[in-house]
């Protein structure tokens, strides 16, 4: 099926070339980072994780979000999703690929990465994260590819795929749970130390992932002969509506516990993010923007008249994707590190090269995603067109 990815229109090649340029710029700057060290980023002794790890965390969510089409189709036999499951699975592949790349670019000594396998440490959550992420990647490649190939050949997919499909559903939940455990099990980091962190991650994932999927469906309908379907998009929109409501609810639970208990260790991080602390407040406008975007998203997706208008729905999805990205991709990590364990405030601001490298990773992900979607849509056009 790979041949479908290399036969395309001028527009397709143009888009791929555009992405390649961004990947190239990111790669050149990464070479600079390899040479100089992570000092070219905005990271510091106090904020030792930043933009890379934040984007990694967000994208684990997008990857897990793919399960929101797989689960109804395979577990509830919701036939309409048969058309779009492959889009969810391929989105998961591209997202996990970005996650792994973000981890790689974040390492101080990336050439030693195999030490994770040479000296496996089951007590480290990172060890388990490596396992679940790679496992999820392989599951989606195997399932997505074989089911699509079967569809192309007009046969039912192989029997042995069924158990893998069932495993992939809880596995999707596991990748984001384990990723949350990276943070919430650390003593002395009050912002993350909450049992609701994994559920919160999952709720924002199930909003952001399907929101992106809706946008991708709308784009595919416009650019190709394959229509993912109005019913499918509307069903996804309901998932997004529930998930974003739950996400905001979880966040408000967090705020209540922190502020009613009045424990400084828990309050100070939220204060730093939303109102500023001791004169430092670089994230304040961002966090309110994030909150505002999520509220707009709720209003537009919960209300049937706005949800059913696909133009408005697209706006809502952009708002939700951006809002959850700021929440997780900016605030979650920087907010957890500030104030520091010694209660000092050294603000973290990502540097330009750091942002460019991150953009390069995103471009790489979208390059893979475009190629995969090109294949999927090509098959769909052959079969249904």
């Amino acid at each position, binding site marked *: 099926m790979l041949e479908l990815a290399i036969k395309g229109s001028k527009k397709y090649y143009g888009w791929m070339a555009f992405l390649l340029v961004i990947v190239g710029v990111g790669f050149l700057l990464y070479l600079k980072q390899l040479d100089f060290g992570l000092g070219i*980023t905005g990271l510091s002794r106090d904020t030792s994780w930043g933009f890379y790890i934040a984007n990694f965390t967000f994208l684990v969510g997008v990857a897990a979000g793919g399960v929101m089409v797989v689960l109804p189709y395979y577990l509830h036999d919701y036939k309409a999703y048969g058309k779009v499951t492959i889009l969810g699975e391929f989105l998961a592949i591209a997202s996990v690929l970005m996650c792994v790349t973000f981890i790689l670019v974040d390492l*101080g000594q990336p050439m030693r990465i195999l*030490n*994770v396998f040479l000296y496996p440490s089951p007590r480290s959550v990172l060890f388990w994260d490596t396992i679940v992420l790679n496992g999820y990647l392989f599951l989606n490649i195997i399932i997505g590819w074989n089911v699509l190939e079967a569809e192309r050949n007009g046969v039912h997919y192989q029997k042995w795929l069924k158990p893998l499909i069932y495993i992939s559903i809880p596995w999707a939940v596991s990748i984001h749970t384990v990723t949350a455990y990276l943070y919430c099990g650390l*003593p002395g*980091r009050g912002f993350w130390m909450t049992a609701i962190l994994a559920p919160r991650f999952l709720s924002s994932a199930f909003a952001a992932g399907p929101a992106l999927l809706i946008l991708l469906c709308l784009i595919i309908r416009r650019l190709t002969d394959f229509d993912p379907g109005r019913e499918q998009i509307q069903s996804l929109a309901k998932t997004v509506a529930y998930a974003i409501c739950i996400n905001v609810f979880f966040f408000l639970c967090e705020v209540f516990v922190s502020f009613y208990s009045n424990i400084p260790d828990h309050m100070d991080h939220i204060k730093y993010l939303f109102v500023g602390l001791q004169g430092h407040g670089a994230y304040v406008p961002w966090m309110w923007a994030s909150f505002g975007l999520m509220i707009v998203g709720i209003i537009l997706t919960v209300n049937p008249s706005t949800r059913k208008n696909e133009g408005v729905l697209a706006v809502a999805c952009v708002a939700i994707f951006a809002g959850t990205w700021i929440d997780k991709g900016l605030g979650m990590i920087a907010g957890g590190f500030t104030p520091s364990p010694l209660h000092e405030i050294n603000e973290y601001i990502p540097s330009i090269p750091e942002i460019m490298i991150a953009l390069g990773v995103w471009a790489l992900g979208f390059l893979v995603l475009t190629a995969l979607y090109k294949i999927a849509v090509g098959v769909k056009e052959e079969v249904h067109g």
Partner: protein
Amino acid sequence: MDSSRRRVLQLLGLSSLALTAKPVFNAFAKEQAHAEKTEPVIKESEKALKAKQWAMVIDTREFHSEEDLKPLIAVCDKIHNVPHLANKRHEIKWIWGAPYHNTFPDKAGRFLSEEVEHKPFLVLCNHCENPPCVRACPTKATFKRESDGIVLMDFHRCIGCRFCMAACPFGARSFNYRDPRPFIVKIDKNFPTRMKGVVEKCNFCSERLAVGQLPACVEAAEGKLHFGDLYDPESEVRELIKTNYTIRRKQQLGTEPSVYYIV
């Protein structure tokens, strides 16, 4: 795809899976392996100082200003090749001074005496008995030495993921954001320099203990710092803990720090 090519690909996939899985199984099977394998023996110096768990008692009553801490910090930096970086973000610190409310943020009362409010307190790695950094490390590059409880770093195994820095509740760890060597005032050949991209921290002078010397800061403090075995009831540190009111940093987190402060 013809079937033989598919067959080869399947085999390749399976064998690469087996290769990556092997060390994982080895780790789980380590218990049994111990019996058969002979561990390499490192010959110890006869003068080596030994303890079940090394601990430090800092008599904060004896330290009044930055000046009092300076010689201790200087000797540590010197013998451990700790670089002096001007950029605060890239700082490497093994032992340093911090105000009371930063050292003990959970115990920072109000209306403290002028002196306590303004004088610096020594902070360093606590060599916890339950170190969260060791739990976090995905390669065992940082580990708690069973023989004497020191939390050590293998600079050559560290992949620079900085999970240990997120896990440490004491901010005791530093990361080499750039090559530290040009910023070392004078390289001491008796201790390794580090490269960019790895984490480092205080090692309780394990290299000195191995040859019968007390940690450099303890020696330089001339009696204001005390060092000994926490599990030896006769040790000086135990006597001091028994006869003085001591506190530890963030005790409530259960990491069991081995650095005690007489206040």
